Structure formats: structure tokens, C-alpha cells
């Protein structure tokens, strides 16, 4: 299946931070199969190209929400989208967050920067059916208060623990400053019965996963979402390799038991 992109219309766009924008899409005609939290879409900006972008929200009537940081030609073109514009979408691709694995467990959702975007639909799914899980903890790290995604929404989540920390505080930041791992002391979880979901820069993922292992969380219960430059998303182009893994197919969500030794090799 090498299907071409399906047209989706932009419903609205909202600047999230200085370099990040959130937009909602609805199928212009035919809809793609449903996406699961943790999966990604290939978003096509007309004439510019495609970029892999995780779903930040799964909306009614096959709608999608995406949060995109401007880092290259395609994402800059996506930033120029206005309500009513049309983009191409392919997907869903990749492994999602394995929520059934976490049934009955305490949940640790740990996000760094834009890494909160693929975790948002996971949090929503758990909040919609909280009885299936133990305590839900959300730990968020960002470079600065201005780089925090979904600020208002974060405050509205009814959670046993929701912690936010920044690398550099600006004036008037009453919250914490430091690494996201420092929030683990406040989080409420029993390590042996915990599933963790981590997304962020690789260095933050490694540090968080190491700390969780140290605290007794099982490596196969630490799920991480990894980033590579997918071109085809169908396992045919070779770009998203991480050692034995083709991350468009075997990822982006991978168990730390499989990923740990791969993340310790430089330039793999």
C-alpha cells in the first residue's frame, strides 16, 4: 500500500509557542483509517514535501490535531497554513502507545518539549476510562515557561500528580526549575506496577528511562517514542533505521528493553 495523500482541510490553527503551532484537520472527502495515540501521520504541504508528525489529538468524525515545531522547509510551510487550506495526509503509521500493556498499572507520562504532543491523546484516552488504570502521573519538562505546550489544558487535567519543570525560568515563573527526572520524587507510583510513556529529546529519554530502571520499573514497561526522518513511512525507504529497527514500522514507540543498547551507541 503506497497510497497517495488524502486531502484534509484545516479547521483552525493556534500558535502554541514562539516556534510551535497547533492545527486541527478534518477530511475534505474520504477519511483515513482511525489513528491511535502514539501513531504518526505523514503531512504533505503542497509542493514542498512531507514530514512525519505524531497525532496530538484524535477528534470526532476522523478529525486530527497536530502540533508542529518549525524546524525545516515542510514544517515552516505547515506553519503558514490558515483555516480552510488543504493539506495531504497519509497514515496511520507506526506502533502506538501500548495502553493494554498498562492495564491496572500506575501510569507515568513523561514529556520533554514537543514530546508532550504525542502523549496528549494518551492522557486523554486514560482520562476517558480511568477505571482501567492505577494512578496517572504527568511530568512535563520544557526549555522555558514560554515553551510549554497546552498550558491551559494541563491545568485542567484532574490527575493524582501533574508536575511541570523548566530549564530556565523567566520572571514570574512560580514553578520548578530543573530536569524532569527531579519530578519523579513527587509522582505517585509503585515502580513494580508501573508503565511509563516517555517522549522528548533522546538525551532526556535516556536519563528518564535510566532513573526509572534504577527505581525498579521494568524495562519492557518503559515505552519510549523515538524520532527518525521517515520518508515513506511504509518500511521501504530505509531512512528511519535504528540498528535492527525500522522506526516507521517497529516504532516510533519502542520498549526500552529493545531500545536501551541501541541508544548507547553513538551515531547508530
Amino acid at each position, binding site marked *: *500500500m*503506497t*497510497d*497517495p*495523500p*488524502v*486531502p484534509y482541510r484545516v479547521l483552525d490553527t493556534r500558535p502554541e509557542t514562539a516556534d510551535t503551532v497547533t492545527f486541527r484537520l478534518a477530511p*475534505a472527502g474520504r477519511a483515513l483509517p482511525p489513528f491511535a495515540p502514539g501513531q504518526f501521520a505523514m503531512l*504533505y504541504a*503542497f*509542493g*514542498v*514535501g*512531507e514530514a512525519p508528525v505524531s497525532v496530538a489529538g484524535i477528534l470526532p468524525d476522523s478529525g486530527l490535531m497536530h502540533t508542529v*515545531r518549525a*524546524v*525545516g522547509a515542510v514544517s515552516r510551510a505547515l506553519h503558514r497554513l490558515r483555516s*480552510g*487550506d*488543504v*493539506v*495531504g495526509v497519509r497514515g496511520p503509521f507506526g506502533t502506538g502507545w501500548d495502553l493494554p500493556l498498562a492495564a491496572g498499572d500506575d501510569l507515568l507520562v513523561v514529556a520533554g518539549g514537543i514530546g508532550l504532543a504525542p502523549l496528549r491523546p494518551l492522557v486523554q484516552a486514560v482520562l476517558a476510562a480511568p477505571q482501567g488504570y492505577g494512578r496517572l502521573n504527568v511530568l512535563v519538562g520544557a526549555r522555558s515557561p514560554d515553551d510549554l505546550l497546552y498550558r491551559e489544558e494541563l491545568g485542567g487535567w484532574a490527575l493524582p500528580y501533574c508536575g511541570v519543570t523548566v530549564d530556565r525560568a523567566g520572571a514570574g515563573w512560580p514553578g520548578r526549575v530543573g530536569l524532569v527526572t527531579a519530578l519523579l520524587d513527587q509522582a505517585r507510583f509503585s515502580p513494580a506496577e508501573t508503565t511509563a510513556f516517555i517522549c522528548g529529546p533522546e538525551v532526556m529519554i535516556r536519563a528518564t528511562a535510566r532513573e526509572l530502571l534504577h527505581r525498579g520499573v521494568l524495562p519492557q514497561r518503559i515505552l519510549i517514542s523515538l*524520532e*527518525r*526522518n521517515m*520518508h*515513506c513511512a*511504509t*518500511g*521501504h*525507504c*530505509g*531512512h528511519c*533505521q535504528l*540498528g*535492527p*529497527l*525500522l522506526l516507521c*514500522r517497529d516504532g516510533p514507540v519502542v520498549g526500552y528493553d529493545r531500545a536501551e543498547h541501541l541508544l548507547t*551507541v*553513538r*551515531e*547508530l
Partner: protein
Amino acid sequence: MPSATTTRDPAPPACVLDRQGLDALVQALRARGRTVIGPTHRGGAIVLEELRSAAELPYGWGVELDGGHYRVVRREDEAAFAHSAGPQSWKNYLLPERVRQWTADRAPDGELTVRQERHPPASYAFLGVRPCDLRAIAIQDRVLLGGWHRDDAYQARRNGAFLIAVECTEPGATCFCVSMGTGPAAGPGYDIALTEVLDETGHRFLARAGTAEGAEVLAGLPQRDADAATRTAAAEAVESAAGRMGRSMPPVDLHTLMASSLEAERWDEVASRCLTCGNCTMACPTCFCTTTEDITDLTGDHAERWSRWESCYDLDFSHLPGGPVRQSGRSRYRQWLTHKLGTWWDQFGSSGCVGCGRCIVWCPVAIDITEEAHALHQEQLARRAAGEGTP
């Protein structure tokens, strides 16, 4: 030809074609509407091209191969298939270098119409597929058709390809199909397999069908039943080829060797020679990596998506917003070799190397995949010895 009444014999019936019979084969395939592609001598190399008659085959030409070295040489006999792998492979036809995938048009109101490219059905006959290359085709099938997503355009080209394998009787100095288990005898997957025999009795080809269509094509050719002498001569020629391989891989599990060699010192040594030019990936019959190109016309309202061969040696191949993951030549050579011999198993259930030797021949600085595997093996043995020596 023995008829269907002799189906007790599990071995497919064989027949013998002479040179006229071989030409009749080419003509029969052309008459069936197929474009016959095969080896021919042009521009100082044995290249793959459309053949209009079997007379275009490189009768009497052989090749002299070594690391970074390729010469066409005159043979003393008139053999047609006494040359090993050339600069191209069948992927040039099955997975062409550049393919348009879809086009998109934008209406004034912004509406997008996307049209999938409809490829005209290709109908090839490949004449002279070496056993190593037969395996290479099977490996690319697995990559492009064996997963959750299928490359439909590849599938169409592949379905339309009629494969005539020619067993290897003259291996080159860079060949190592025996250690990869891919030759010199033809494995499964062919429509017709030929073995060239040239002796005092004459120049002829032992032919077997591997599919119903292959049997049908053979049945229509001028031929005679296979005699014992031809069968024996063919078997001996292939067996003799197996003993004359120019190269070999270390006799270890290469998958495990690669997985345990990610931090080997040898990568620095090979990186000091490797130009990261990507020639090996272009010449390799299994390398499948592609990139995408998005283009627009001058109106800006018509866009196209093309896929194009790409090499893991390109710096941009591992591009991420923070910069390429594999910045050093060391890491890019390591990616290629460990993928080819190691992680290919994890991803697609087989090795990615078929032992054709093209990467050795077409490397401008003569880097030799078998030498590198041996060096990594030696380094592993030395590491183990040192580990065991220290309490």
C-alpha cells in the same frame, strides 16, 4: 519434451538448446510481447540492455575483476555467459532509479486533487539472471512486498518479469556466492534455468522450466532431450565453479558478528579509506533505499512526488532537525555493512548480501566487504582472547 504423463519424476524435465535455440528463445519471448533484457558488450563493460536477438549476447567475452578493477577480456572460447556480475543489476529495471509516485493539482479554492501514478504494465524477460542475482530479486521482493505495506508499482513490474536464470560456470575473482549460500547453482524463483556447456561435443545450453509458463515457452523451441553427457557436463561445470570462488566470508554467523562489532576499532581503519561515495550501494543488487523529491511546475499549482535511489552514505540520509545522526564516515560505513550482513536479518529475515562482489569491484578505493568481515571477526577473536586472558 517429456509430457505431463511423466510427473512422477520430481525433477523438472530438461532439454538442450543450441545457439539457434537460444535465439529462438529470445524471439519467442519478444513474440509474446516481452522486452528481453540481457547482458551485452558495450563501452568496455558487460551491461544489461534490451536484446533484439541472442547474437547481441557477449559471446567470447569474459571479465577480469578485482577490488576497484573491472576489465572486459577476450576469451579463447565463444561462451555467452562466462562473465560475472556487471555494473548494473536487475533492480535497475524492477526498482528504477527514479519513479513518479503521484501528482497533485491545487484548484483556485485550495482544493487538492491527488492522482496515484498508474504505471503501464511492464513485461520484461530477464535473460542471464545469475543465481546470486536471482536471490537478490527474492530479497528485494521481501523488502518491498513482504511487509504490512506493499509497493504496488514494484509488484506490477515484478509480476511482469519472466526470469531466465543462467547458472554460474565462470566465477570472478570477487565472487563469494558459495559463502552466502546463493550460488553457483540456481535456487528457486526462475521461469527457466540454463546451464551453458562448451566442450568438444559443441556449444549448448541445458534448460529446465521452473514454472508452467517457462515449460510452455521451452516447449515451443527447437530443442532436443537432455542427454546424459550434457547433464553431467553441466553439473560438473557448476560444481567446478563452486570450487573457484575468488573470495569468501569468515565461516561465522555474520548477523551475530555485526551485532557484537558496533564499537570495533576496524571502523576507524576502513573509514580512513572510504570516500562515502555510495558506489557500493548503487551497484548492490539488494540496496533499496530511496528518498523522495517534491517538485512543482511554473504555475505552482501542479506538484509531483518522485522517489529516487538514495544511499546511506549521503550525509542527509540520517537528517534530523538537530543535524544528521550519522555524521562520520565511520558511522555511515558501519551502517551499510552492519545492515547488509546483520540487521537485515532482523528487519527482513535474511542476509542482505548475496555474494555477487559488485561492491568490491565498483569501490573506487577497493574496499572489500569480505576483507572487512574477516577483520571484524579477527578483532572479535582478539577481544575474546584478551578478555579470557585477564582474570
